[in-house]
């Protein structure tokens, strides 16, 4: 009886510790939340992959050094969530202009097969992207795309009807080129405040 009591308490204590760890202290039950908590606690460096924008110019994250950037991942044919992302970016663009924060927006397409320069320009036009703040770009090849997706922990799955399912979020990259925060689509206010926090 005493041995069992001891063994059970040991198992339960160990188990509680494991579950505590596995949920980041009962805060994260999904991988997405866990990732957000981890990034907030310790910002992660992002590989400086070369991207190509709608007019064929090269863009790198290092171009933005000294400025905060909000990055999102889209594919231009997306009928649902990317439209919402576009709207939120549009709203952020207005606020950045109005506020005069030295910050930029960057939308990266992961649909290498369909999103060429023309599609990117069209998406920019539809959502009223002002090229001085909001740029659209795509990686040059699948290998570099994978590198990017892994760094941002974005998982893209084909949805079976020609489109994709992906975890859509606003990724805030600080002036030092590190990923410092991930926010829900509708948390553009929180994302904006994160941008402001970089100004002393």
């Amino acid at each position, binding site marked *: *009886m005493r041995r*069992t009591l001891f063994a*059970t308490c040991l198992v339960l204590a160990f*188990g509680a510790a*494991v*579950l505590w760890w*596995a949920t980041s202290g009962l805060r994260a039950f999904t991988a997405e939340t866990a990732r957000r908590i981890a990034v907030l606690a310790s910002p992660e460096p992002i590989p400086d992959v070369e991207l190509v924008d709608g007019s064929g110019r090269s863009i790198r994250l290092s171009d933005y050094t000294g400025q905060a950037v909000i990055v999102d991942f889209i594919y231009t044919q997306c009928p649902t969530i990317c439209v919402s992302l576009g709207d939120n970016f549009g709203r952020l663009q207005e606020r950045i202009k109005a506020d005069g924060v030295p910050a930029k927006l960057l939308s990266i397409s992961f649909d290498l097969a369909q999103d060429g320069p023309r599609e990117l320009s069209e998406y920019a036009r539809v959502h009223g992207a002002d090229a001085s703040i909001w740029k659209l770009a795509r990686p040059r090849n699948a290998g570099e795309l994978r590198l990017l997706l892994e760094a941002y922990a974005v*998982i893209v*799955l084909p949805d079976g009807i020609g489109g994709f399912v992906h975890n859509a979020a606003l990724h805030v990259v600080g002036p030092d080129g590190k990923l410092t925060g991930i926010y829900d689509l509708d948390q553009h206010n929180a994302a904006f405040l994160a941008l402001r926090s970089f100004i002393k």
Partner: protein
Amino acid sequence: MTERLAFYAAVLILVTVSSSPVRLLLEQSLVSHLLIQMPALVLCGWTIARRHRDAINRGRESFNVGGATGLSFALIVFSFWMLPRSVDGSVQNPLYEFAKFVTLPFAGASLALSWPKLPPLAIGILKCNLVSMMLVLSWIYTTSPSRLCNSYLRDEQDMLGQIVAVLAIGLGCLFGGSLFCGTTTIVRRKSATPIGSGGRE
């Protein structure tokens, strides 16, 4: 005889399920991942351990009186793998995947060793709780505003929720129905000693 057959079947299934092609096939969908692969791992562990129950138990009985230790271990393992984060982890991270293929059969084995020792009261409460919690899980899967696992599609999460609801009701009916057709030993005389610990199956 049947136990020996079941043992070999379980070993065979465990090897099959662990082999790369079958593993990846079952993990392609959330439904087969959670409702086929994981239960299969637990069941194999259970069946394999059951055959050698006496040998494993010998000399260790005092560490698992009433099945308390084994049950706690199994419940912890199940809780861990019920977290959407762990499910995502097992698809994305080989270390998680390895842990899953080790811990789930062990949880099944530990349940096989402990279940017959559990007092009937505990079994009854566990069954009621299982049905209740499955209803809650089904609700979580179907009403979550976002995908709980980044590795799986929303449709699969909905389907999983619906299947779990059906399973919960089915299990409820099964547990309820079994109350009506049991033929447990009937104690004719009211015994004076309280019953609770050390009840038999």
